């Protein structure tokens, strides 16, 4: 099986095949022979050369994975050919065009600092969300105009709810 991985914005290829009870993993042409045991939950114990590590995998959405190796979390994406094509077709990660500002966590809108149609500067506060007794000010990702405003003071919001669009 061949996967495409994105680590720190760089694309890598990962080929994997079972071999004599182990896995032959080829990363960008470099070969590793890895002994793997699946543990409870999303975790594997790896022996690579003599190195023994436990890797905890936390799946996110769209092929995003967080892999805990020892004490450090490595965010990465692992995509097969099909998902890579989809990702490339939709994946635009620049600040051009309208930018959505979403609720970063479930919470309550305590203040809305802008009105629809307002001109805002980059970094200007848009909405204040409270969760766990802490207030968090969400800032504009770019200079532009508030084209959509969905945040309502006092409303409860779920994580990922669309609050403001700046274009």
């Amino acid at each position: 099986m061949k996967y495409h991985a994105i680590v720190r914005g760089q694309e890598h290829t990962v080929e994997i095949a079972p071999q004599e009870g182990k896995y032959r993993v080829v990363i960008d042409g470099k070969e590793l022979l890895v002994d793997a045991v699946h543990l409870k939950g999303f975790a594997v114990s790896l022996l690579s050369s003599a190195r023994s590590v436990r890797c905890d995998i936390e799946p996110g959405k769209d092929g995003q994975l967080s892999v805990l190796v020892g004490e450090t979390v490595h965010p990465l994406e692992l995509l097969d050919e099909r998902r890579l094509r989809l990702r490339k077709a939709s994946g635009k990660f620049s600040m051009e065009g309208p930018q959505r500002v979403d609720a970063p966590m479930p919470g309550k809108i305590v203040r809305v600092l802008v009105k629809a149609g307002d001109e805002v500067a980059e970094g200007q506060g848009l909405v204040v969300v409270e969760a766990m007794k802490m207030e968090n000010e969400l800032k504009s990702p770019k200079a532009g105009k508030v084209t959509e405003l969905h945040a309502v003071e006092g409303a409860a919001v779920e994580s990922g709810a669309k609050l403001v669009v700046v274009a």
Partner: protein
Amino acid sequence: MNKILIANRGEIAVRVARTCREMGIRTVAIFSDADRAALHVRCCDEAVRVGPPASRESYLAMDNVIAAARQTGADAIHPGYGFLSENATFARACAKAGLVFIGPPPEAMEEMGEKTRARRKAIEAGVPVVPGQKEPIPEGGEAKAKEFALGIGYPIMLKAAAGGGGKGMRLVEDPKDFDSAYATAQREALSAFNDGRVYIEKAVSRPHHIEIQVFADTHGDAIWLGERECSVQRRHQKVIEETPSAIVTPQLRAEMGRVAVNAAKAVRYVGAGTCEFLVDGHTRNFYFLEMNTRLQVEHPVTELCTGLDLVRWQIEIARGGRLPWTQEDVLKNLRGHAVEARIYAEDPARNFLPSPGTILELRLADGPGVRNDCGVESGSEVPRYYDPMIGKLACFAQTREEAIARLHRALGETVVKGITTNTSYLRGILELEEFRKGDYDTGLLARGADRLLPKAQEGAALTEDEELALAAAAIWQLEQDQKLAAPPVAQEQSAWARAGRLSALRRSR
């Protein structure tokens, strides 16, 4: 005292329940609708719902809490910290309902609980205090307050009169920021303590935040149990605490202890209390800040270095018992070094954004000298309504160096999946040279902020760990893809499901 209602949630409710169980005392938990499945509910013998998720309608709703105690026949209430723990009205309501409030008498709470009154009391007793207002800012008194602030000179601190734990507290460095800081402090104070009053204090530069644990009984005796160095703070929230403090000499300890005990005696204090001091980093002069009339979050470090169970002492004293130790006993028994780290559901990489959600898996540290006080377990929901602290990890060793190395190791063993926590940030703090040296002030985290954020890996080449991460991800993904392709019989079946299926088969025969 046969049954205690624990008027709290999370790790402190679990911690109090543990001692009660050791003492053969039955326990009653209270819970809001957001906490029905919380760990503390299962750690108690009985549990009563006290209202909807918002604290004001549940954990802070005095009538509901007292009704829960009456309904279950509890004879005492342990308030933990936060919520109703420093509320004299609640203590009185308990007494009126014939319930023992495990804490100081309401009069002592009022004199010490409200910061401005405590300051007046301290001044009367000849205890040095930081210059500031003697009364909270009255409604419409902003203009006068601003004049006062200019008088004592910026930077100033705005503090919640009813406060503690850094809530409703703002540093104001410039007069132009006064209004917005005042509004925020009031709002936070109102939400946290149901009391929006705020007062002004001069901000002391490069201060150490050091507190003394005191204990007093109903027979008029009071002792101190050593200090806790709490200068590792982020936005006035304590993050790491240790005892002893690297800058406190035996003479200074005895002097601060004496002052703290005097302060406690001046208000006829009973039970566990903490006198907070600011210690000048250069002159080692100390100023009384406030007295917290409750058990502190960081009490485990004192327990580790004294070998005591402070909750047991609280209960014994509430029963009318005498202090089991004299001051000489304390001095003879103080030993070793303890460090505690607070584990928060927050993301340091995203400006410490709270990270509520479901904990998919939790692995706690273990081994020599390790103590976990944890309010959650695998599968727990961390609700968005309450404080983001999910637990505390404290380590004990013979020396400071060993205790720090131990905590560093134990934080590495701690794995919380499903939500983001601050464990790697905490490890980063322990690695700071200034922290290692021991003489650090409350500005430590602000100065070290850049070094504490996760460092971006340099260069395009994958590191060895990244290669292993990719290998693990690929092995895991391959497994997932094969599971999807394989017929469902291959799916793992739990023993419970199998047992259920078998009994269903038997019934159908």
